């Protein structure tokens, strides 16, 4: 019976872990290149000392021209993530999402952020991780 218990635990632990791995952010598809395809994108990735003064550990952004089809897909993904955000600020214009800042507290050491902006011409999607709070980020960048 003890062996059976151990085998069951070893069998279901990776399955459970796999389930958890699948439950990451919906917008991960966009960063993985599965939504924008061959669209012209300006992608920026920073991780390390360049972000220290902002109390961030990693930064990943995508800036692209906002076609209607992609906008609808990305908007849906952002709103899906917004459902479990700890804090969120969103703006809708004519029923379309034009601005979103979502904050997630995934662990005691830091916060994760997903930011989305679409002015009808250019759209930007950002993922950040770090110890900075939303108020700190606003204070840092409000005068820049």
């Amino acid at each position, binding site marked *: 019976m003890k062996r059976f218990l151990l085998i069951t635990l070893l069998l279901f632990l990776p399955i459970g872990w796999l389930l958890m791995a699948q439950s990451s952010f919906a917008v*991960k598809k966009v960063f993985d290149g599965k939504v924008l395809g061959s669209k012209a994108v300006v992608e920026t990735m920073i991780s390390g000392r*360049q972000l220290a003064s902002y109390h961030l550990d990693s930064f990943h*952004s995508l800036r692209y021209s906002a076609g209607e089809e992609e906008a609808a897909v990305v908007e849906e993904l952002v709103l899906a993530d917004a459902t479990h955000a700890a804090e969120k600020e969103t703006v809708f214009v004519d029923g379309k999402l034009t601005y979103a800042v979502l904050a997630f507290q995934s662990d005691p050491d830091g916060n994760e952020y997903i930011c989305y902006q679409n002015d009808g011409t250019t759209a930007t999607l950002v993922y950040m991780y770090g110890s900075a709070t939303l108020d700190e980020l606003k204070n840092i*960048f409000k005068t820049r």
Partner: protein
Amino acid sequence: MNKDKQYYLDLAERWFDAETSEAEEKELRRFLAATEDPDFDEARAALGFLAASSLRAEAPKSPIDLPRQIGPRRTAGLLGTSATTASGSSKRRWLIPAVAVAASLVLAFFFGRMTAPVEIVPVGAGTCVSYVHGVEVNDEDFAVATMESTLSDFFSPAAAPDPRTDLSLIFNANE
């Protein structure tokens, strides 16, 4: 006799929990082959048929004087035995794997959460790079400037939603 019966009931329960030694298991098999007590139906269903077929020719070595009633009635009893037991050990057998599954999922949940952050960012430590339409721009200053410009767009007062504006629109609609 009752004391002996209780001994074998306990032995059967320990067999279901995989806590019996080989010698105890053989003793249980011999007992089940020789008895038709309905309290042992479940154990007989799991073991008894095998015990009847493999030990029919072997005389029980137990000093206990057990009735020998081998025949078609026991075989019919073996095949038609129900899965219930007075001790509830069959219910416990399903409960333990269910608890093991639940425990492993809970462990995986918490362990997964501990390693969850930053899975979106496929970059190594110390990365500072931009890609413009697929072309790498290995210029740190350009990457940092892009980052600052992007975050200023998000967090500057002009970009952030101002609930005061919305409220003033609502309350001053008729003006």
